[in-house]
Protein backbone atom coordinates (compact mmCIF):
# COMPACT_ATOMS: atom_id res chain seq x y z
CA UNK A 1 0.00 0.00 0.00
CA UNK A 2 2.83 2.38 0.83
CA UNK A 3 4.39 2.15 -2.62
CA UNK A 4 2.37 5.22 -3.60
CA UNK A 5 4.82 7.26 -1.53
CA UNK A 6 7.60 6.63 -4.00
CA UNK A 7 6.01 9.52 -5.91
CA UNK A 8 7.31 12.90 -4.78
CA UNK A 9 3.89 14.50 -5.10
CA UNK A 10 2.39 11.93 -2.73
CA UNK A 11 5.12 12.56 -0.17
CA UNK A 12 4.48 16.31 -0.47
CA UNK A 13 0.77 15.68 -0.16
CA UNK A 14 1.24 13.73 3.03
CA UNK A 15 3.60 16.36 4.45
CA UNK A 16 1.07 19.08 3.60
CA UNK A 17 -1.66 17.00 5.25
CA UNK A 18 0.34 16.67 8.46
CA UNK A 19 1.22 20.38 8.58
CA UNK A 20 -2.36 21.44 7.96
CA UNK A 21 -3.60 18.93 10.52
CA UNK A 22 -1.47 20.43 13.29
CA UNK A 23 -2.83 23.92 12.59
CA UNK A 24 -6.40 22.65 12.27
CA UNK A 25 -6.16 20.69 15.50
CA UNK A 26 -5.10 23.75 17.49
CA UNK A 27 -7.12 26.46 15.79
CA UNK A 28 -10.13 24.21 15.17
CA UNK A 29 -10.36 23.63 18.92
CA UNK A 30 -10.64 27.39 19.48
CA UNK A 31 -13.20 27.71 16.69
CA UNK A 32 -15.38 24.94 18.11
CA UNK A 33 -15.28 26.01 21.76
CA UNK A 34 -15.82 29.68 20.87
CA UNK A 35 -18.64 28.76 18.47
CA UNK A 36 -17.24 30.90 15.69
CA UNK A 37 -17.56 28.40 12.87
CA UNK A 38 -19.62 30.88 10.86
CA UNK A 39 -17.06 33.62 11.36
CA UNK A 40 -14.38 31.23 10.09
CA UNK A 41 -16.52 30.45 7.05
CA UNK A 42 -16.75 34.19 6.38
CA UNK A 43 -12.98 34.54 6.58
CA UNK A 44 -12.50 31.61 4.19
CA UNK A 45 -14.82 33.01 1.57
CA UNK A 46 -13.53 36.55 1.88
CA UNK A 47 -10.09 35.07 1.18
CA UNK A 48 -11.33 34.26 -2.29
CA UNK A 49 -11.40 37.99 -3.00
CA UNK A 50 -7.68 38.01 -2.25
CA UNK A 51 -7.04 35.19 -4.70
CA UNK A 52 -8.80 37.21 -7.41
CA UNK A 53 -6.77 40.27 -6.47
CA UNK A 54 -3.57 38.21 -6.65
CA UNK A 55 -4.36 37.15 -10.22
CA UNK A 56 -5.37 40.70 -11.13
CA UNK A 57 -2.10 42.15 -9.84
CA UNK A 58 -0.05 39.25 -11.16
CA UNK A 59 1.34 38.24 -7.76
CA UNK A 60 1.18 34.87 -5.98
CA UNK A 61 -2.54 34.45 -5.11
CA UNK A 62 -1.58 33.02 -1.72
CA UNK A 63 -0.29 36.43 -0.63
CA UNK A 64 -3.51 38.05 -1.81
CA UNK A 65 -5.47 35.45 0.12
CA UNK A 66 -3.45 36.03 3.29
CA UNK A 67 -3.96 39.80 3.05
CA UNK A 68 -7.69 39.54 2.37
CA UNK A 69 -8.36 36.94 5.02
CA UNK A 70 -6.39 38.90 7.64
CA UNK A 71 -8.23 42.15 6.87
CA UNK A 72 -11.62 40.45 6.81
CA UNK A 73 -10.81 38.49 9.97
CA UNK A 74 -9.88 41.64 11.86
CA UNK A 75 -12.99 43.40 10.53
CA UNK A 76 -15.33 40.56 11.43
CA UNK A 77 -13.61 39.98 14.74
CA UNK A 78 -13.99 43.63 15.65
CA UNK A 79 -17.67 43.64 14.68
CA UNK A 80 -18.17 40.41 16.61
CA UNK A 81 -16.69 42.00 19.73
CA UNK A 82 -18.69 45.23 19.44
CA UNK A 83 -22.18 44.20 18.42
CA UNK A 84 -22.84 40.66 19.47
CA UNK A 85 -26.42 40.33 18.26
CA UNK A 86 -26.10 41.34 14.61
CA UNK A 87 -22.58 40.12 13.98
CA UNK A 88 -23.79 37.17 11.91
CA UNK A 89 -25.46 39.51 9.41
CA UNK A 90 -22.27 41.47 8.86
CA UNK A 91 -20.25 38.27 8.55
CA UNK A 92 -22.75 37.12 5.91
CA UNK A 93 -22.26 40.37 3.99
CA UNK A 94 -18.46 40.11 4.05
CA UNK A 95 -18.69 36.45 3.08
CA UNK A 96 -20.69 37.24 -0.07
CA UNK A 97 -18.86 40.45 -0.98
CA UNK A 98 -15.42 38.80 -0.65
CA UNK A 99 -16.47 35.99 -2.96
CA UNK A 100 -17.99 38.41 -5.50
CA UNK A 101 -14.89 40.61 -5.47
CA UNK A 102 -12.75 37.57 -6.25
CA UNK A 103 -14.85 36.71 -9.27
CA UNK A 104 -14.88 40.30 -10.57
CA UNK A 105 -11.10 40.57 -10.18
CA UNK A 106 -10.70 37.33 -12.11
CA UNK A 107 -13.00 38.62 -14.87
CA UNK A 108 -10.74 41.63 -15.22
CA UNK A 109 -7.49 39.63 -15.19
CA UNK A 110 -6.14 38.58 -18.55
CA UNK A 111 -4.78 35.16 -19.33
CA UNK A 112 -4.99 31.59 -18.17
CA UNK A 113 -6.91 30.86 -14.96
CA UNK A 114 -7.18 27.09 -14.88
CA UNK A 115 -5.42 26.98 -11.51
CA UNK A 116 -8.48 28.61 -9.99
CA UNK A 117 -10.33 25.39 -9.33
CA UNK A 118 -7.50 24.29 -7.11
CA UNK A 119 -8.41 27.04 -4.65
CA UNK A 120 -12.05 26.01 -4.63
CA UNK A 121 -11.53 22.28 -4.25
CA UNK A 122 -7.96 22.07 -3.08
CA UNK A 123 -4.90 20.59 -4.70
CA UNK A 124 -3.11 18.57 -2.08
CA UNK A 125 -1.50 16.53 -4.88
CA UNK A 126 0.01 19.67 -6.39
CA UNK A 127 1.48 21.33 -3.28
CA UNK A 128 4.98 22.53 -4.21
CA UNK A 129 7.86 22.22 -1.76
CA UNK A 130 7.98 26.01 -1.37
CA UNK A 131 4.41 25.99 -0.01
CA UNK A 132 5.45 23.35 2.51
CA UNK A 133 8.03 25.77 3.85
CA UNK A 134 5.41 28.54 4.18
CA UNK A 135 3.08 26.08 5.97
CA UNK A 136 5.82 25.02 8.36
CA UNK A 137 6.60 28.64 9.24
CA UNK A 138 2.91 29.42 9.83
CA UNK A 139 2.66 26.35 12.05
CA UNK A 140 5.58 27.53 14.16
CA UNK A 141 3.86 30.92 14.61
CA UNK A 142 0.56 29.28 15.59
CA UNK A 143 2.18 26.90 18.07
CA UNK A 144 4.36 29.62 19.63
CA UNK A 145 1.47 32.04 20.16
CA UNK A 146 -0.80 29.30 21.47
CA UNK A 147 1.77 28.25 24.05
CA UNK A 148 2.51 31.85 25.06
CA UNK A 149 -1.15 32.83 25.49
CA UNK A 150 -2.72 29.48 26.33
CA UNK A 151 -4.17 30.51 29.72
CA UNK A 152 -5.39 33.85 28.44
CA UNK A 153 -7.03 32.40 25.32
CA UNK A 154 -8.70 29.75 27.44
CA UNK A 155 -9.94 32.44 29.84
CA UNK A 156 -11.45 34.68 27.16
CA UNK A 157 -13.02 31.68 25.47
CA UNK A 158 -14.61 30.46 28.68
CA UNK A 159 -15.75 33.72 30.27
CA UNK A 160 -14.69 36.89 28.51
CA UNK A 161 -16.67 39.11 30.91
CA UNK A 162 -14.65 37.95 33.87
CA UNK A 163 -11.42 38.12 31.85
CA UNK A 164 -12.23 41.75 31.06
CA UNK A 165 -12.87 42.55 34.72
CA UNK A 166 -9.45 41.22 35.77
CA UNK A 167 -7.81 43.34 33.05
CA UNK A 168 -6.93 40.60 30.58
CA UNK A 169 -6.60 42.42 27.20
CA UNK A 170 -9.64 40.64 25.75
CA UNK A 171 -9.96 42.67 22.53
CA UNK A 172 -6.33 42.30 21.50
CA UNK A 173 -6.28 38.57 22.26
CA UNK A 174 -9.48 38.06 20.34
CA UNK A 175 -8.09 39.85 17.29
CA UNK A 176 -4.95 37.74 17.57
CA UNK A 177 -7.12 34.62 17.60
CA UNK A 178 -9.06 35.61 14.47
CA UNK A 179 -5.77 36.45 12.74
CA UNK A 180 -4.52 32.95 13.55
CA UNK A 181 -7.77 31.58 12.13
CA UNK A 182 -7.15 33.60 8.97
CA UNK A 183 -3.68 32.18 8.33
CA UNK A 184 -4.90 28.67 9.13
CA UNK A 185 -7.72 29.12 6.62
CA UNK A 186 -5.31 30.12 3.86
CA UNK A 187 -3.06 27.18 4.70
CA UNK A 188 -5.94 24.71 4.72
CA UNK A 189 -7.33 26.12 1.49
CA UNK A 190 -4.36 24.74 -0.47
CA UNK A 191 -5.10 21.23 0.75
CA UNK A 192 -8.86 20.76 0.78
CA UNK A 193 -10.02 23.91 -0.98
CA UNK A 194 -11.92 26.94 0.09
CA UNK A 195 -15.30 25.25 0.09
CA UNK A 196 -14.19 22.56 2.49
CA UNK A 197 -11.85 24.49 4.78
CA UNK A 198 -14.53 24.65 7.43
CA UNK A 199 -14.90 20.89 7.45
CA UNK A 200 -11.30 20.29 8.42
CA UNK A 201 -11.37 23.12 10.95
CA UNK A 202 -14.46 21.86 12.75
CA UNK A 203 -14.96 18.12 12.38
CA UNK A 204 -11.76 16.78 13.98
CA UNK A 205 -12.09 19.25 16.87
CA UNK A 206 -15.78 18.47 17.28
CA UNK A 207 -15.05 14.72 17.43
CA UNK A 208 -12.24 15.29 19.94
CA UNK A 209 -14.55 17.46 22.04
CA UNK A 210 -16.96 14.55 22.36
CA UNK A 211 -14.39 12.42 24.10
CA UNK A 212 -11.96 14.63 26.01
CA UNK A 213 -12.64 17.48 28.41
CA UNK A 214 -9.19 19.00 28.49
CA UNK A 215 -8.17 21.65 25.99
CA UNK A 216 -4.61 20.48 25.36
CA UNK A 217 -5.77 16.91 24.85
CA UNK A 218 -8.57 18.14 22.61
CA UNK A 219 -6.00 19.92 20.42
CA UNK A 220 -3.70 16.90 20.27
CA UNK A 221 -6.52 14.47 19.56
CA UNK A 222 -8.05 16.63 16.84
CA UNK A 223 -4.65 17.10 15.17
CA UNK A 224 -4.17 13.33 15.29
CA UNK A 225 -7.62 12.67 13.86
CA UNK A 226 -6.99 15.21 11.16
CA UNK A 227 -3.76 13.44 10.13
CA UNK A 228 -5.64 10.15 10.08
CA UNK A 229 -8.47 11.52 7.92
CA UNK A 230 -6.03 13.13 5.51
CA UNK A 231 -4.05 9.90 5.19
CA UNK A 232 -7.09 7.67 4.69
CA UNK A 233 -8.66 10.20 2.33
CA UNK A 234 -5.49 10.42 0.25
CA UNK A 235 -5.24 6.64 -0.02
CA UNK A 236 -8.87 6.27 -1.01
CA UNK A 237 -8.67 9.06 -3.56
CA UNK A 238 -5.53 7.51 -5.08
CA UNK A 239 -6.91 4.00 -5.43
CA UNK A 240 -10.48 4.96 -6.30
CA UNK A 241 -9.43 7.87 -8.51
CA UNK A 242 -11.50 10.46 -6.64
CA UNK A 243 -10.94 14.15 -5.89
CA UNK A 244 -8.59 14.16 -2.91
CA UNK A 245 -10.00 17.16 -0.98
CA UNK A 246 -13.56 15.91 -1.17
CA UNK A 247 -12.54 12.38 -0.21
CA UNK A 248 -10.68 13.63 2.88
CA UNK A 249 -13.73 15.61 3.96
CA UNK A 250 -16.08 12.68 3.45
CA UNK A 251 -13.82 10.46 5.56
CA UNK A 252 -13.96 13.13 8.29
CA UNK A 253 -17.72 13.49 7.92
CA UNK A 254 -18.40 9.77 8.19
CA UNK A 255 -16.11 9.58 11.23
CA UNK A 256 -17.95 12.48 12.83
CA UNK A 257 -21.26 10.75 12.33
CA UNK A 258 -19.98 7.45 13.73
CA UNK A 259 -18.38 9.21 16.75
CA UNK A 260 -21.61 10.97 17.47
CA UNK A 261 -23.50 7.67 17.48
CA UNK A 262 -20.82 6.00 19.58
CA UNK A 263 -20.92 8.80 22.10
CA UNK A 264 -24.69 8.64 22.35
CA UNK A 265 -24.61 4.89 22.82
CA UNK A 266 -21.74 5.10 25.30
CA UNK A 267 -23.35 7.83 27.40
CA UNK A 268 -26.67 5.98 27.52
CA UNK A 269 -24.86 2.87 28.70
CA UNK A 270 -23.03 4.86 31.36
CA UNK A 271 -26.28 6.25 32.71
CA UNK A 272 -27.78 2.78 32.72
CA UNK A 273 -24.81 1.48 34.72
CA UNK A 274 -25.11 4.31 37.21
CA UNK A 275 -28.73 3.49 37.78
Amino acid sequence: MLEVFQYGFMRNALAAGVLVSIACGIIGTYIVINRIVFLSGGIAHAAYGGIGLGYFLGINPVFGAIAFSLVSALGMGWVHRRTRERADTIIGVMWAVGMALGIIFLDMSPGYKADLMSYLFGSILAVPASDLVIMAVLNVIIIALTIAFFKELQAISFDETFAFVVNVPVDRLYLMLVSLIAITVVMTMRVVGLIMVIALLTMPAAIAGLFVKDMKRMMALSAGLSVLFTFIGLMLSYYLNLTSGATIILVAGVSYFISFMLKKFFVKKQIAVQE
Partner: protein
Amino acid sequence: MKNEPVIEIKGLWAGYEGHTILEDIDLTVNQSDFIGLIGPNGGGKTTLLKTIVGLIKPDSGEIRVMGKSVDDGRCHIGYVPQYVDFDRQFPIRVWEVVQMGLLGCRRPLQAINKVDRETIQFALEQVEMVDLRQRSIGDLSVGQRQRVYIARALTSNPQILLLDEPTASIDPQVAGAIYELLSRLNKTVSILMISHDMNAVSSYVKTVGCLNRRLHYHGEKEVTEDMLEAIYGCPVDLIAHGLPHRVLSDHSHEGVAHA
Protein backbone atom coordinates in the same frame (compact mmCIF):
# COMPACT_ATOMS: atom_id res chain seq x y z
CA MET B 1 -4.92 53.54 55.73
CA LYS B 2 -7.31 51.98 58.17
CA ASN B 3 -10.12 54.32 57.37
CA GLU B 4 -9.61 54.63 53.65
CA PRO B 5 -12.80 53.52 51.90
CA VAL B 6 -12.56 50.47 49.67
CA ILE B 7 -15.12 51.79 47.22
CA GLU B 8 -16.29 55.36 46.98
CA ILE B 9 -19.14 56.30 44.65
CA LYS B 10 -20.24 59.91 44.26
CA GLY B 11 -23.19 61.21 42.25
CA LEU B 12 -23.27 58.18 39.94
CA TRP B 13 -25.74 58.09 37.05
CA ALA B 14 -25.59 55.07 34.76
CA GLY B 15 -27.68 52.86 32.51
CA TYR B 16 -27.88 51.12 29.15
CA GLU B 17 -27.91 53.06 25.89
CA GLY B 18 -29.74 56.14 27.04
CA HIS B 19 -31.97 54.41 29.60
CA THR B 20 -30.94 55.72 32.96
CA ILE B 21 -31.20 53.04 35.62
CA LEU B 22 -29.05 54.35 38.43
CA GLU B 23 -29.84 57.84 39.66
CA ASP B 24 -27.52 59.87 41.79
CA ILE B 25 -25.94 57.00 43.72
CA ASP B 26 -23.67 57.79 46.64
CA LEU B 27 -22.10 54.84 48.38
CA THR B 28 -19.06 54.30 50.52
CA VAL B 29 -17.90 50.79 51.27
CA ASN B 30 -15.43 50.66 54.14
CA GLN B 31 -13.02 47.98 55.21
CA SER B 32 -14.68 44.97 56.86
CA ASP B 33 -18.16 46.00 55.69
CA PHE B 34 -20.61 43.28 54.71
CA ILE B 35 -23.40 45.05 52.86
CA GLY B 36 -26.49 43.28 51.59
CA LEU B 37 -28.19 45.01 48.69
CA ILE B 38 -31.89 44.39 48.17
CA GLY B 39 -34.45 45.86 45.83
CA PRO B 40 -36.96 44.98 43.12
CA ASN B 41 -36.02 43.43 39.80
CA GLY B 42 -34.96 46.08 37.34
CA GLY B 43 -34.00 48.34 40.21
CA GLY B 44 -30.38 48.45 39.08
CA LYS B 45 -28.62 46.15 41.53
CA THR B 46 -26.73 44.23 38.87
CA THR B 47 -26.14 47.47 36.94
CA LEU B 48 -24.49 48.96 40.00
CA LEU B 49 -22.06 46.04 40.35
CA LYS B 50 -21.31 46.06 36.63
CA THR B 51 -20.59 49.77 36.79
CA ILE B 52 -18.22 49.29 39.71
CA VAL B 53 -16.17 46.73 37.75
CA GLY B 54 -16.20 48.80 34.57
CA LEU B 55 -18.52 46.65 32.43
CA ILE B 56 -20.81 49.69 32.15
CA LYS B 57 -19.42 53.21 31.81
CA PRO B 58 -21.05 55.79 34.09
CA ASP B 59 -22.99 58.61 32.41
CA SER B 60 -21.79 60.91 35.15
CA GLY B 61 -20.38 60.75 38.63
CA GLU B 62 -17.29 59.13 39.96
CA ILE B 63 -16.23 55.70 41.23
CA ARG B 64 -12.96 55.15 43.07
CA VAL B 65 -11.77 51.70 44.04
CA MET B 66 -9.03 51.73 46.68
CA GLY B 67 -8.54 55.37 45.75
CA LYS B 68 -7.85 54.49 42.10
CA SER B 69 -9.83 54.67 38.88
CA VAL B 70 -12.03 51.67 38.03
CA ASP B 71 -9.59 50.34 35.40
CA ASP B 72 -6.70 50.23 37.88
CA GLY B 73 -8.68 49.66 41.04
CA ARG B 74 -10.66 46.63 39.88
CA CYS B 75 -7.58 44.51 40.42
CA HIS B 76 -8.55 44.77 44.10
CA ILE B 77 -12.07 43.48 43.40
CA GLY B 78 -13.17 39.87 43.41
CA TYR B 79 -16.22 39.75 41.15
CA VAL B 80 -18.73 36.89 41.28
CA PRO B 81 -21.32 37.51 38.55
CA GLN B 82 -24.85 36.19 38.70
CA TYR B 83 -24.75 34.08 35.59
CA VAL B 84 -21.72 32.73 33.88
CA ASP B 85 -23.00 31.96 30.44
CA PHE B 86 -21.16 28.79 29.59
CA ASP B 87 -21.24 25.63 27.63
CA ARG B 88 -21.33 22.40 29.66
CA GLN B 89 -19.08 20.82 27.06
CA PHE B 90 -16.41 23.48 27.49
CA PRO B 91 -13.05 21.76 28.04
CA ILE B 92 -11.86 23.49 31.21
CA ARG B 93 -11.05 22.12 34.66
CA VAL B 94 -11.94 23.62 38.03
CA TRP B 95 -8.28 24.48 38.62
CA GLU B 96 -8.07 26.36 35.32
CA VAL B 97 -11.25 28.34 36.05
CA VAL B 98 -9.89 29.43 39.42
CA GLN B 99 -6.58 30.33 37.77
CA MET B 100 -8.42 32.94 35.66
CA GLY B 101 -8.48 35.28 38.65
CA LEU B 102 -4.69 35.51 38.46
CA LEU B 103 -4.28 36.36 34.82
CA GLY B 104 -4.91 40.03 34.32
CA CYS B 105 -3.46 42.23 37.00
CA ARG B 106 0.15 41.20 36.53
CA ARG B 107 2.91 41.33 33.95
CA PRO B 108 1.83 39.79 30.66
CA LEU B 109 3.29 36.45 29.59
CA GLN B 110 4.19 35.56 33.15
CA ALA B 111 4.02 31.84 33.78
CA ILE B 112 2.07 30.43 36.71
CA ASN B 113 4.68 29.95 39.46
CA LYS B 114 4.78 28.20 42.80
CA VAL B 115 3.28 31.14 44.70
CA ASP B 116 0.41 31.31 42.19
CA ARG B 117 -0.26 27.61 42.59
CA GLU B 118 -0.37 28.06 46.34
CA THR B 119 -2.81 30.95 45.90
CA ILE B 120 -5.09 28.78 43.77
CA GLN B 121 -4.80 25.92 46.22
CA PHE B 122 -5.64 28.24 49.13
CA ALA B 123 -8.67 29.66 47.31
CA LEU B 124 -9.91 26.13 46.62
CA GLU B 125 -9.42 25.20 50.27
CA GLN B 126 -11.48 28.21 51.32
CA VAL B 127 -14.46 26.99 49.33
CA GLU B 128 -13.76 23.31 50.09
CA MET B 129 -13.32 22.34 46.48
CA VAL B 130 -9.74 20.99 46.53
CA ASP B 131 -10.85 17.41 45.89
CA LEU B 132 -12.67 18.39 42.73
CA ARG B 133 -9.88 20.55 41.27
CA GLN B 134 -9.31 18.30 38.26
CA ARG B 135 -13.01 17.99 37.44
CA SER B 136 -14.44 19.47 34.30
CA ILE B 137 -16.55 22.52 35.16
CA GLY B 138 -19.53 21.11 33.26
CA ASP B 139 -19.66 18.10 35.59
CA LEU B 140 -20.31 20.19 38.71
CA SER B 141 -23.60 21.03 40.37
CA VAL B 142 -24.82 24.63 40.46
CA GLY B 143 -23.73 25.06 44.07
CA GLN B 144 -20.27 23.61 43.42
CA ARG B 145 -19.86 25.88 40.44
CA GLN B 146 -20.80 28.89 42.54
CA ARG B 147 -18.05 27.92 44.97
CA VAL B 148 -15.59 27.71 42.11
CA TYR B 149 -16.54 31.23 40.99
CA ILE B 150 -16.04 32.49 44.53
CA ALA B 151 -12.62 30.80 44.61
CA ARG B 152 -11.80 32.41 41.27
CA ALA B 153 -12.68 35.80 42.73
CA LEU B 154 -10.43 35.09 45.73
CA THR B 155 -7.27 34.34 43.74
CA SER B 156 -6.78 37.99 42.84
CA ASN B 157 -6.26 38.60 46.57
CA PRO B 158 -9.17 41.05 46.65
CA GLN B 159 -9.87 43.80 49.16
CA ILE B 160 -13.55 43.48 48.35
CA LEU B 161 -15.87 40.84 46.98
CA LEU B 162 -18.80 41.85 44.79
CA LEU B 163 -21.38 39.10 44.60
CA ASP B 164 -24.45 39.16 42.42
CA GLU B 165 -27.03 36.84 43.99
CA PRO B 166 -24.56 34.14 44.92
CA THR B 167 -27.31 31.76 45.99
CA ALA B 168 -29.83 32.19 43.19
CA SER B 169 -31.02 28.75 42.05
CA ILE B 170 -29.18 26.97 44.85
CA ASP B 171 -31.02 24.90 47.44
CA PRO B 172 -31.23 26.45 50.94
CA GLN B 173 -28.75 24.11 52.59
CA VAL B 174 -26.00 24.85 50.11
CA ALA B 175 -26.91 28.52 50.26
CA GLY B 176 -26.39 28.43 54.02
CA ALA B 177 -22.93 26.97 53.53
CA ILE B 178 -22.07 29.72 51.06
CA TYR B 179 -23.21 32.41 53.51
CA GLU B 180 -21.16 30.81 56.27
CA LEU B 181 -18.19 30.91 53.92
CA LEU B 182 -18.79 34.59 53.17
CA SER B 183 -19.01 35.40 56.88
CA ARG B 184 -15.64 33.74 57.39
CA LEU B 185 -14.11 35.56 54.43
CA ASN B 186 -15.49 38.83 55.75
CA LYS B 187 -12.86 38.73 58.50
CA THR B 188 -10.33 39.82 55.90
CA VAL B 189 -12.29 41.23 52.94
CA SER B 190 -15.18 43.64 52.57
CA ILE B 191 -18.28 42.27 50.85
CA LEU B 192 -21.01 43.90 48.80
CA MET B 193 -23.66 41.35 47.96
CA ILE B 194 -26.93 41.45 46.07
CA SER B 195 -29.53 39.09 47.44
CA HIS B 196 -33.22 38.38 47.21
CA ASP B 197 -32.96 36.10 50.18
CA MET B 198 -34.18 38.19 53.12
CA ASN B 199 -33.40 35.46 55.62
CA ALA B 200 -29.80 35.43 54.54
CA VAL B 201 -29.62 39.18 54.52
CA SER B 202 -30.97 39.33 58.05
CA SER B 203 -28.70 36.62 59.46
CA TYR B 204 -25.36 37.21 57.79
CA VAL B 205 -24.85 40.76 56.57
CA LYS B 206 -23.82 43.65 58.76
CA THR B 207 -25.70 46.41 56.96
CA VAL B 208 -28.47 46.59 54.39
CA GLY B 209 -29.07 48.92 51.47
CA CYS B 210 -32.13 49.15 49.26
CA LEU B 211 -31.78 50.02 45.60
CA ASN B 212 -34.56 51.03 43.27
CA ARG B 213 -32.88 53.41 40.83
CA ARG B 214 -31.94 55.44 43.90
CA LEU B 215 -30.00 53.96 46.77
CA HIS B 216 -31.23 54.00 50.34
CA TYR B 217 -28.33 53.09 52.53
CA HIS B 218 -27.66 54.39 55.98
CA GLY B 219 -25.06 51.92 57.14
CA GLU B 220 -27.56 50.18 59.33
CA LYS B 221 -28.85 46.68 59.54
CA GLU B 222 -32.52 47.54 59.88
CA VAL B 223 -34.68 47.84 56.86
CA THR B 224 -36.92 50.71 57.89
CA GLU B 225 -40.46 51.06 56.71
CA ASP B 226 -39.40 54.31 55.09
CA MET B 227 -36.83 52.48 53.01
CA LEU B 228 -39.23 49.79 51.92
CA GLU B 229 -41.88 52.32 51.13
CA ALA B 230 -39.43 54.28 49.06
CA ILE B 231 -38.34 51.10 47.32
CA TYR B 232 -41.44 49.06 46.84
CA GLY B 233 -43.96 51.83 47.40
CA CYS B 234 -45.91 49.61 49.72
CA PRO B 235 -45.19 49.06 53.41
CA VAL B 236 -47.66 46.15 53.54
CA ASP B 237 -45.03 43.95 51.94
CA LEU B 238 -43.23 43.96 55.22
CA ILE B 239 -45.86 42.01 57.00
CA ALA B 240 -47.24 40.07 54.08
CA HIS B 241 -43.93 38.40 53.36
CA GLY B 242 -43.17 37.74 56.98
CA LEU B 243 -39.80 39.38 57.13
CA PRO B 244 -37.76 38.20 60.08
CA HIS B 245 -38.25 40.45 63.07
CA ARG B 246 -34.57 40.83 63.54
CA VAL B 247 -34.33 42.98 60.47
CA LEU B 248 -36.91 45.34 61.85
CA SER B 249 -35.99 45.23 65.49
CA ASP B 250 -34.45 48.21 67.14
CA HIS B 251 -31.10 46.83 68.19
CA SER B 252 -27.81 48.72 68.42
CA HIS B 253 -26.88 50.72 65.34
CA GLU B 254 -23.35 49.46 64.99
CA GLY B 255 -23.11 50.57 61.39
CA VAL B 256 -24.24 54.13 61.93
CA ALA B 257 -20.74 55.53 61.78
CA HIS B 258 -20.48 54.59 58.09
CA ALA B 259 -23.36 56.73 57.02
